[in-house]
């Protein structure tokens, strides 16, 4: 193991740029942590621009975007361990770690968002099974544990702990299955959460299909995360990108997005609300943007093998779809909700700083893991040979 790690380290000389990037990420993460401490000491009113008109702000938008984006971990695990397609196994560690970091970010940001954060354990002590917020919190907590288990083999193997490693391995299918069930539940519940806003959420977005639509976009968005991580991380460390594998994922993204797009439009058609697309209002424009950037564009790119077999095409398709996902979640959680006249919300810099810090910390951990854990990016070419 030591020799392997030594080899690994030698194959990757640390450059100054890399060190500077790490330090920068560290600084941002430290700033975020500092601001978070201020937020806990001084309360929400003093450190955010949230108000009675905007009880939820950019933090919730971040959460409802990062959760489906992190779904890459569960979709890829389903491909490898349930559909038993071994070829994708090599992609699993970085994607699962990215998913895990995504969920840890969400938990941290949710904690900062609570008005009574010191009481978070009430979510375990008192249950209201009719609340989707309750279901989401539970599934997110449990699924984070599942992700730790799913990622643990990589760490245990690097540490050379054979016993625990084999034990975890032998239960892989069990907790992967649990992860898939938990993910289906909370990804759809994130959509169900908005059902109560029937009269407040604009009709372009409110539909009883919200849970299904959220699940579909989470699968597509998660696959995009898998593509982006599997492309950008090896690239950053000068390792080969497995383009043909990612192209298959890209095709699946196109498929899921196409189904989503058709469902969405059919739903509007049946509800007799297609006319809302052409009112020329700001919201109809946002809806078009979401549909073109997040559905039409990526489907056009990723459905053509000529384009998705190239790194550039894949990158474009996956990035567009991710952007569309973010816009969709922002529309639902922020823009398309009724507000009293004359109220505005522009996030406080402290709200933004906490998010930036969380993302910086996640990227830093992902990069360090890729560098320090020998099995993260799969065998190097010479090892494979």
């Amino acid at each position, binding site marked *: 193991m030591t020799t392997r790690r030594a080899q690994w380290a030698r194959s990757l000389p640390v450059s100054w740029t890399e060190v500077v990037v790490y330090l920068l990420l560290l600084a941002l993460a430290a700033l975020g942590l500092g601001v978070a401490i201020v937020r806990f000491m001084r*309360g929400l009113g003093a450190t955010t621009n949230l108000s009675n008109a905007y009880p939820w702000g950019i933090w919730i938008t971040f959460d409802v975007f990062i959760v489906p984006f992190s779904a890459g971990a569960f979709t890829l695990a389903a491909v490898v361990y349930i559909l038993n397609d*071994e070829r994708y196994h090599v992609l699993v560690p970085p994607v699962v770690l990215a998913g895990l970091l995504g969920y840890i970010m969400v938990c941290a940001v949710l904690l900062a968002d*609570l008005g009574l954060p010191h009481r978070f354990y*009430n979510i375990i002590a008192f249950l209201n099974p009719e609340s989707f917020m*309750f279901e989401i919190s539970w599934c997110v907590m449990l699924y984070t544990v599942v992700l730790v288990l799913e990622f643990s083999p990589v760490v245990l193997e690097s540490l050379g702990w054979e016993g625990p490693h084999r034990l975890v391995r*032998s239960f892989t299918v069990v907790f992967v299955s649990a992860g898939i069930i938990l993910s289906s539940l909370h990804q759809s519940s994130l959509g169900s959460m908005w059902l109560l806003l029937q009269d407040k959420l604009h009709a372009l977005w409110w539909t009883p299909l919200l849970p299904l639509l959220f699940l579909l976009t989470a699968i597509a968005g998660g696959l995009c995360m898998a593509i982006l991580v599997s492309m950008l991380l090896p690239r950053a460390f000068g390792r080969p990108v497995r383009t043909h594998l990612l192209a298959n994922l890209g095709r699946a993204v196109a498929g899921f997005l196409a189904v989503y797009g058709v469902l969405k439009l059919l739903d509007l058609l049946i509800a007799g609300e297609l006319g809302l697309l052409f009112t020329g209002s700001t919201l109809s424009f946002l809806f078009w943007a979401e549909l073109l950037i997040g559905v039409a564009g990526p489907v056009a790119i990723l459905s053509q093998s000529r384009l998705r077999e190239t790194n550039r095409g894949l990158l474009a398709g996956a990035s567009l779809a991710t952007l569309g996902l973010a816009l969709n979640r922002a529309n639902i959680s922020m823009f398309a909700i009724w507000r009293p006249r004359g109220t505005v919300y522009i996030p406080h810099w402290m709200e933004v700083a906490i998010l930036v810090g969380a993302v910086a910390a996640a990227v830093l951990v992902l990069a360090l893991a890729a560098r320090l854990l020998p099995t993260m990016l799969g065998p190097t070419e010479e090892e494979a040979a």
Partner: protein
Amino acid sequence: MSKAMLIDTTRCTACRGCQVACKQWNDLPAEKTRNLGSYQNPYRLSAYTWTIVQMREVEYEGRLFWSFLKRQCMHCLHPACVSACPVGAMHKLPDGPVLYNDARCIGCRYCMTACPFRIPRFEWDKPVGYIRKCHFCFDRLAEGLMPACVKTCPAGALQFGEREEMIALAEQRLKAQPERYIQHVYGKEEGGGTSVLILSAVPFAYLGLPTLADHPVPSEQELAMPFEYLGVPSLGREPVAKLNDDLARYGTPGIAIGVAAILAGLQWYSKRRGTGQHTGDAAPAAKESGS
């Protein structure tokens, strides 16, 4: 039995005695307010102001109305806030009041997001804030008294009693003076019904209340709402909380069982197909746990 309050906006003189009575009974502090060019003051509900008399100048059928509507928690029969609350801090008493339990709340503010009447407020000014809203004077109700605001109303605009009686009283007034009222008891059916019932001389949408989808509503321009698209939020007769609760009750186990069945099926299928195709290190794991 379920209690209700009847608000007759046509009788209200905007004396705002109810605002003061509410503050007195509940020991709520005064607030520093700004003059926004309206007698409506404070301008909005807050954690320290649980009821306000909303004042709107409304043009309807060629006449100008100065409408006064007491805003407060509607104490819905199927409250969205109760369905939303993950820890059961929001709960409804059998006789009507929708209450908030300080000791349970985690401050997620989903109740604020979910309430169709935009009632719950948060104590933004405190390091550790709680949700606050009208509690229907549940403490007075328990002693057989009426809410403080109703008790104080000198104009007879507020009435309190059994919900059926209040509906009957409202309908009686509609019949007695048809020209005085829009022929509709607001809150009888809206969102599955509320414990606060309202009578008005102008359509309820003009008062900023979410109205039944099938009710005639003024055009969006007339309302001059901020966002044209949501000028008139609409409520169904079915409480939306019911959709939520049914989905949570049956959908959640349904999804869990359905997905588990699919996974088991896939496992069985891939085993039948033979695990011989497996290469790489995860294959043994799949075999071990599958056996």
